[in-house]
């Protein structure tokens, strides 16, 4: 640590950082624009000028930019110095020269960093009386609005989009005061992380178009700390509600998980909550006649199902509480995993890996520290996008090392990138087809699963001679040597794989990590991605033998006559034939869900469930990290949290259920640690969900009743549906809203971090549920079977899309605009052999389903990547397919598909 003097006060600071970051870490107010806590300094805006003195005798001093000045021991600086203040006032005046007077109609208003900094810098009168600079705006797709006239040219957008997130279609163009940030021509922003522009832009150039559709001021939104339900990463979010509709989602800082950024599925995929299709009333269908039920009558039916010995089918998109309540209701033996059997098998392998002390499940922050990465058959950008963004940062560890050797400080962002150029830490991709991370890959193996397994076995064997020997050694010996050496020599190697890899490949990848442990004698980072928000929680809850097929078999055989399906569309989990065979036999099917599905259509009893923002819940992410998601707003229908339909005490508080789950469900013992410590909330004071500026509380329902409504009481939670209460409480495991005097934008988060980029002073990073056992596992045996496919057939690899593969977000209008129809990706040589062309519609074997051909430059020959979309029954697909050209008109063709290797002929 170093001691520096700021305006006469001595502070302990980290000499590895720049002055701006350290001033903010100390809680001091110093305006800035171009610096970003996660992206470092470039020195463009000149807003953070401070006075630096040579020594105690120096009275004159010189102006320096705090963001470009290293904090060194003994330094004397002043923020309050008149000359520094004048400089900052001049800079803000310059920035505001052409800025429009549109704050009252600007969607950034009220959470605008530029507004905050303008006030902080004391600028309130525009002396500039010449002509302003104006720009044309662009159409950037369904997610982002563009209003370039508000731009203050801080370069943050391109630094995030291009430098940080690897985008290629947003750039700084033109020069001097005409500098323009946009695409080379109008069009959809291609990056999966474009939504972060909304938060990275310090003013209203890039705003949230989905929010725009039903806009409300930030201060009028009711918010609560929430968890994204879009995938298994569990990013922390802050959804905002007004007038009973969910308006938007913004990032919520979690130092271990998502940091400052979300993916576009997480940010824009929430609108299913507002869908007019939402199930609102319990209903019973008897002989085709639908009756609506009162809540109590519906509860009685649940009881009847229990008495009838119903089996329960849980869900990876339901909370722990709901799965737990269902398991309690039907009994452990009758509780089944609501996922495809092969996925359940992967999840069980994942569980065994999570319990094995030779591995460590890395958080996103830890993934960013990896300096050699092997990704095995997981299209991370489409299955766990936020991790793909973290992996993009991990390859920059080489740059950090080079900068360290050249004595360039890490925060000098542009200088570090300039020095390293394209020198990246090794990142090797093994997969059936190319993915969007290929541009940062040092090595890539595109091959069928058999070969992937053989090469993985070779890598494991090259690292540890104790690893299982292959029957036939791989011919890729150079690749094997290189990758094994990279992993062995790295400071922090990382293996990434997941359920989508297929269970044999997953095991082979885990063997590589185990081999690394054998030679390094330290826990090896092994990131196994699960498919959905609570896949891991469901796997922990479900007895090992209780796969979905077993449940369907019991129903089909009539062993069980009643079934309760919790928040699950079984037709997404098994083939239509299988599910129909089971459901046609049952005498009672009770389905609890949020939206109509093929399964709810078959329900005898249908109970409406609340969505993620309408209830408090816990989810377990890919690491085994449990996180608490608070209720944001109330549901005004009869929908209840899934579990509330299933418990016997109607008034049970959710926290009591979480407690009970912790006490009685094996593996969940630490779940109660995610609950807020209520002892820090004194005298019944709660954390308000509404800001102190929340408007219209007494008036918003005056069209119905002019009497002031009583604020609803939330007996469940430490949060209140109110403006009153304590906004934040030190050391409390909940941070309501990050707001501080003078800091109305998301940049206020710095006031709540113990240091910049550090842990929150309030709030929780979640709790690791899975305990590592004392004994280590063994190598998985090598799979030697080869499924030689018949001539003319192509082996099926399932492809995923960030927009479309997730069931709920795919029902959000904005996401729908980015979805692609079902397609088959094949190698150009296979296409030629089969006489197929890009854009052709083909039959998928004899399933009757069709898809559109996309030629992929980097695709294992003999393999077809099938993206099923809504149209194709994934579980009805055989392991190898014959593609046959359909006579049907090829229709509108393939739209919305953004991959890294689309073959040119297609364009």
């Amino acid at each position, binding site marked *: 640590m170093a001691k520096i003097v700021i305006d006469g006060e001595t502070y302990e600071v980290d000499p590895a950082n720049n002055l701006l970051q350290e001033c903010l870490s100390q809680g001091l107010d110093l305006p800035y624009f171009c610096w970003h806590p996660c992206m470092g300094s470039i020195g463009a805006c000149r807003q953070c000028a401070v006075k630096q003195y040579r020594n105690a005798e120096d009275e004159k001093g010189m102006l320096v930019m705090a963001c470009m000045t290293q904090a060194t021991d003994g330094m004397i600086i002043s923020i309050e110095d008149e000359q520094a203040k004048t400089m900052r006032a001049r800079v803000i005046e310059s920035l505001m020269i052409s800025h429009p007077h549109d704050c009252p109609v600007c969607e950034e208003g009220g959470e605008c960093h530029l507004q905050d900094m303008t006030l902080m810098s004391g600028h309130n009168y525009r002396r500039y009386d010449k002509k302003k600079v104006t720009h044309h705006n662009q159409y950037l797709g369904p997610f982002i609005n563009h209003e370039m006239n508000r731009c203050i040219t801080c370069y943050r957008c391109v630094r995030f989009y291009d430098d940080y997130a690897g985008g290629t279609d947003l750039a700084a163009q033109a020069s*001097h005061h005409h500098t323009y940030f946009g695409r080379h021509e109008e069009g959809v922003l291609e990056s999966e992380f474009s939504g972060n522009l909304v938060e990275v832009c310090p003013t209203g150039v890039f705003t949230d178009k989905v929010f725009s559709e039903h806009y409300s001021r930030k201060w009028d939104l009711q918010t609560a700390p929430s968890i994204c339900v879009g995938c298994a990463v569990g990013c922390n979010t802050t959804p905002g509600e007004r007038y009973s509709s969910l308006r938007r989602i913004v990032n919520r800082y979690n130092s271990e998980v998502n940091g400052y950024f979300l993916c576009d599925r997480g940010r824009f995929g929430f609108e299913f909550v507002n869908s007019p299709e939402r199930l609102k009333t319990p209903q019973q269908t008897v002989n085709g006649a639908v009756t609506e039920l009162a809540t109590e009558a519906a509860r009685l039916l649940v009881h009847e199902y229990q008495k009838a010995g119903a089996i329960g089918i849980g869900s990876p998109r339901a909370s722990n509480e709901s799965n737990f309540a269902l398991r309690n209701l039907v009994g452990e033996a009758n509780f089944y995993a609501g996922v495809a059997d092969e996925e359940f098998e992967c999840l069980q392998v994942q569980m065994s890996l999570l319990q094995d002390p030779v591995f460590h499940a890395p958080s996103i922050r830890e993934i960013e520290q990896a300096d050699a990465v092997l990704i095995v058959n997981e299209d991370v950008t489409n299955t766990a996008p936020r991790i793909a963004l973290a992996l993009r940062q991990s390859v920059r560890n080489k740059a950090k090392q080079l900068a360290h050797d050249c004595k360039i400080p890490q925060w000098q962002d542009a200088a570090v990138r300039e020095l390293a150029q394209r020198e990246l830490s090794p990142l090797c991709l093994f997969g059936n087809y190319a993915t969007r991370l290929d541009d940062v890959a040092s090595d890539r193996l595109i091959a069928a699963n058999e070969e992937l397994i053989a090469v993985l076995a070779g890598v494991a064997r090259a690292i540890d001679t104790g690893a299982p020997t292959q029957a036939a050694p791989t011919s890729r010996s150079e690749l094997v040597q290189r990758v094994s050496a990279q992993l062995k020599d790295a400071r922090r190697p990382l293996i990434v794989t997941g359920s989508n890899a297929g269970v044999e490949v997953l095991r082979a990848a885990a063997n590589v990590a185990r081999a690394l442990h054998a030679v390094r004698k330290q826990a090896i980072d092994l990131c196994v991605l699960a498919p959905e928000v609570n896949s891991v929680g469901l796997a922990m809850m479900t007895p090992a033998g209780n796969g979905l097929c077993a449940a369907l078999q019991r129903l089909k055989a009539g062993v069980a006559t009643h079934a309760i399906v919790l928040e699950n569309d079984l037709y997404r989990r098994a083939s239509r034939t299988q599910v129909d065979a089971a459901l046609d036999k049952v005498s009672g099917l009770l389905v609890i869900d949020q939206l109509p599905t093929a399964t709810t259509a078959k329900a005898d009893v249908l109970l409406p469930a609340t969505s993620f923002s309408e209830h408090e819940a816990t989810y377990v992410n890919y690491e085994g990290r449990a996180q608490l998601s608070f209720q944001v707003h109330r549901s005004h229908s009869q929908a209840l949290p899934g579990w509330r339909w299933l418990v016997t005490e109607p008034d049970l508080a959710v926290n009591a259920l979480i407690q009970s789950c912790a006490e009685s469900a094996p593996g969940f013992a630490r779940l109660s640690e995610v609950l807020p410590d209520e002892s820090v909330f004194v005298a019944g004071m709660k954390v308000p969900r509404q800001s102190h500026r929340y408007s219209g509380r007494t008036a918003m329902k005056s069209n119905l009743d002019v009497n002031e409504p009583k604020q609803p009481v939330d007996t469940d939670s430490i949060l209140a549906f109110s403006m009153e209460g304590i906004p934040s409480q030190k050391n409390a495991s909940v941070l309501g809203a990050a707001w501080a005097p003078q800091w109305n934008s998301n940049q206020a988060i710095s006031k709540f971090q113990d240091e910049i980029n550090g842990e929150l002073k309030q709030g929780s990073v979640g709790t690791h549920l899975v305990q590592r056992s004392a004994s280590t596992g063994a190598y998985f045996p090598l799979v030697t079977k080869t499924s030689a496919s018949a001539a003319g057939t192509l082996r099926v690899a399932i492809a995923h899309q960030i927009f479309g593969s997730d069931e709920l977000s795919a029902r959000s209008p904005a996401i729908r605009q980015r979805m692609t129809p079902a397609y088959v990706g094949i190698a150009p040589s296979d296409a030629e052999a089969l006489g197929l062309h890009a854009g052709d519609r083909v039959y998928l074997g004899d399933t009757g389903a069709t898809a559109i051909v996309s030629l992929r430059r980097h695709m294992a020959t003999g393999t077809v990547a099938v993206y099923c979309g809504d149209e194709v029954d994934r579980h009805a697909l055989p392991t190898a397919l014959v593609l046959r050209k359909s006579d049907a008109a090829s229709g509108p063709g393939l739209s919305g598909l953004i991959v890294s290797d689309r073959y040119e002929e297609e364009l």
Partner: protein
Amino acid sequence: MVTKPLTKNIDMSRPPLDMAGYEAADGYQSLHAIAKGLAPADVLQRVKDSGLKGRGGAGFPTGLKWSFVPMGPEAPKQKYLVVNADEMEPGTFKDRLLMEGDPHLLIEGMLIAAYTIQADKAYIFLRGEYIVAERRLRKAIDEAYARGYLGQNILGMGFNLDIVLHTSAGRYICGEETALLNALEGKRANPRAKPPFPQVSGLWGKPTIVNNVETLCNLPGILTYGVDWYHSLTKGTDHGTKLCGVSGKVKNPGCWELPLGTPIRELFEDYAGGMQDGLALRGFLPGGGSTDFLLPEHLDLTLDYDVIGKAGSRLATGTMIILDDQTCPVGMVGNLMKFFAHESCGFCTPCRDGLPWVDEIFNDFENGRGTEKDLAILHEHVDYLGPGRTFCALAPGATAPLGSGLRHFREDFERHIKDKKCSYRG
């Protein structure tokens, strides 16, 4: 004895010397001297001893600049030499003379510099409009390859050098060495933060020296004729000769090679012939558009970096722009401001948004709309755009004519406000 090492071979009435002619005039002797056993460290020492200062404008000692390049077995293998031939300083046309008049001199200078820092690749970043220079340099480079002075294992020394001639798309900011490097890499021509300096992390992140054309052209003489000879050239404190230009309403505008330390009056009266008939000298920018005005009383100063620095301006490129008494100084400064505002790269706020405001105010002055408030804002900008406030030296350069213009020609600004017009235009 050679007294004009930069221009001795230049005769603009004929094409430049070809390889044979250049070699006959002591050309490439320095390369042969190196081949006979001068180590890079020896050459560096000679350049340091010569006292050569960069001729691009900043006047930084060349040897010192080179000495920051990592050398020895631990140093990165790839290093670069880059020639800053993007001559865009208003009023400056000296490098053009050298490249059009004696292209082999530059190539010889590049060989010396590249050898000293052990760079095997050199780029000439040439102003795009210099079409004649491009043609002549290409021919000279071809001749040098053919003669074995470029390419692999030059003169059996085990030293390799390839030269790439790159013609710029044209921005003033590319004269800033780090913006030049970005442009050469195909990126936006924004300057980079310093440190790290290009000597450590330059072109494509590798150790790089960026030198001005005239600087490099000084090197062959130093190695061929020796440091003592070089020291004998000057009349003042700084060493060597300097190309000096004069533009404006003088009788004989042009560019000449003069020993440093020559009185400005000699350049102005003897070479440029003094003012045209009927005009009087009002002031002059001694080293291009980004230097402070000097006044007639300064004519007896000598052309030395320190002497002119003490008078409150800079020798910079050594090319004077003359202001006469019939030309409006407000218009002249305004013209420069328009240039600087347009050439701002748009990276840092004061330069990007400050200079256009200044430019707009000058427009208003020209059109009779100037006010006292505007004048006050101009004064503020002299400070606001000054050194340390901005990311690079472009805007501080612009404040040189602005600040000194406001100081020396205040009555002209005030007359514009009072008369609501520019009285020079009748």
